[in-house]
C-alpha cells in the first residue's frame, strides 16, 4: 500500500468519525436547541417537591426557560430549597409564582413559572416567595376520603 493512499484512508476515517459525532450532536442531541448559556440563579422554598430532580426543566407558558440547579433540604425550617438557573434573556417580576407540575400522567416533574405584576424583576440570588407544592396523590386521595366521610356524618 503506497503512502498517499494510506493517508487518504485515514483522513476519510477521521472525517467520517467527526461527521458522525457532529451528526450525533446536531441531529440526535440537543446542542442546537439547547441555547441556555448565560443564566442567573434564583431560589424558591417548597414544602414538598414531589419527584422534582436536579436538571428538571423550568417552563414559563410551556417554553423551557431554565433548569433546576440543585435541591437541598433545609434542616432549620424543614422545607426544600430549590435553586434554579434561568436564562438571562428571560426576566420575571419579583412576585412570580412557582409551581411544581407533572408533565402528562406519568411524566417528569418540572417547575412552572407564572409571571406576576410587580414592577421590579428577579435578579441573581433572589427568592421566589410564592410557591405551590407538588401534588402528592396519596394526600389528595386521603383528603377526598376524609371530606366524603365527613359529608356522610352530617
Amino acid at each position: 500500500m503506497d503512502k498517499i493512499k494510506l493517508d487518504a484512508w485515514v483522513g476519510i476515517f477521521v472525517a467520517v468519525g467527526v461527521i458522525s459525532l457532529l451528526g450525533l450532536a446536531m441531529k440526535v442531541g440537543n446542542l442546537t436547541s439547547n441555547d441556555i448559556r448565560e443564566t442567573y440563579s434564583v431560589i424558591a422554598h417548597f414544602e414538598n417537591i414531589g419527584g422534582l430532580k436536579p436538571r428538571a426543566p423550568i417552563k414559563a407558558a410551556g417554553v423551557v426557560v431554565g433548569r433546576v440547579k440543585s435541591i437541598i433540604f433545609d434542616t432549620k425550617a424543614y422545607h426544600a430549597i430549590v435553586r434554579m438557573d434561568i436564562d438571562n434573556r428571560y426576566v420575571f417580576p419579583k412576585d412570580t409564582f412557582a409551581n411544581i407540575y407533572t408533565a402528562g400522567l406519568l411524566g417528569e416533574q418540572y417547575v412552572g413559572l407564572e409571571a406576576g405584576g410587580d414592577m421590579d424583576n428577579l435578579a441573581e440570588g433572589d427568592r421566589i416567595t410564592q410557591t405551590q407544592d407538588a401534588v402528592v396523590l396519596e394526600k389528595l386521595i386521603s383528603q377526598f376520603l376524609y371530606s366524603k366521610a365527613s359529608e356522610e356524618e352530617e
Partner: protein
Amino acid sequence: MKSLINFFDKVGYSITSRINRLGTAARLFFLILISSGESFKRFNLTMKEIYFTGVMSLVIIIVSAFFVGMVLGLQGYYTLQKYGSSEAIGVLVALALVRELGPVVTALLFAGRAGTAITAEIGLMKATEQLSAMEMMAVNPVGRIIAPRFWAGVIAMPILASIFSMVGILGGYVVAVIVIGVDEGAFWSQMQANVDFRYDIVNGVIKSLVFGVACTIIALFEGFDAPPTAEGVSRATTRTVVTSSLVILGLDFILTSFMLGG
C-alpha cells in the same frame, strides 16, 4: 499436611503472579507514555496503525451497528406500541446506542478485531526476536513498535464508537420510520428533546476513550508478555479477548455509575 501446604502454595503463587503481571502492565503503560514522543514526531508510524486498527475495522463496525440499530428499532417498537407510545422509539434507540451499546459493542468488536491482531503481531515479533534485534540497533522497541499502536487504538476507538452510534441510529430509523411507519418528525424531535449533548453524547465519547486505552494496553501487554513460542502466542491472543471483554464490561459499570450518580 503436605498437600495443604501445596494448596496454599498454589493459591499464593497464582495471586502473586497476577499482581506481578498487573505491575508489569502498569510499568509498560508508563513506559509507553514516556516514550511516545516518537509516535507523534513521526506521525506516519501512528497513521499506519490507525489504518490497520481503525480503517480496517470500519466494515465490521458499520455492518454490526446497522443490525444492532435495526434490532433495537424492532424490539423497542413491539414493546412501546403496547403502551401507545411508539413515537418514543427514537429516544430509546438513540439513548441505548449513545450511552451504552455504541461504546461497549464497539470496544468488544475492537478487542476481537484489532486487539487480537496486535497481540499476535507483537508476540510473534518477540518470538522471532525482532524486538531484541531492534534493541541491539539502539532502537527503542517501545517507542518504535508499541507506542504508535497504543495511540492508534486510543485515537481510533472514539471515532469508531461515534460511527457505530450514528449508523445504529440510522438503522433504527430505517426500521422504525421506513419499514414500520412511525412518524418521522416525532422520531427525530423526541430524540432531540431527550438526548443531552453534555450528559449523553460526551459521556459516551469519554467511555469509548477509556475503553480504547484499556483495550490496547491489554492487547499490547499480552503480546509483550507472551512466551516466545507458538503456543504462548496463541494463548496470549485468547487471553487478550477474554480479559479485554471482562475489563470493558466491568469498567462500563463503574463509569456508568459515576456518570449517572455525578
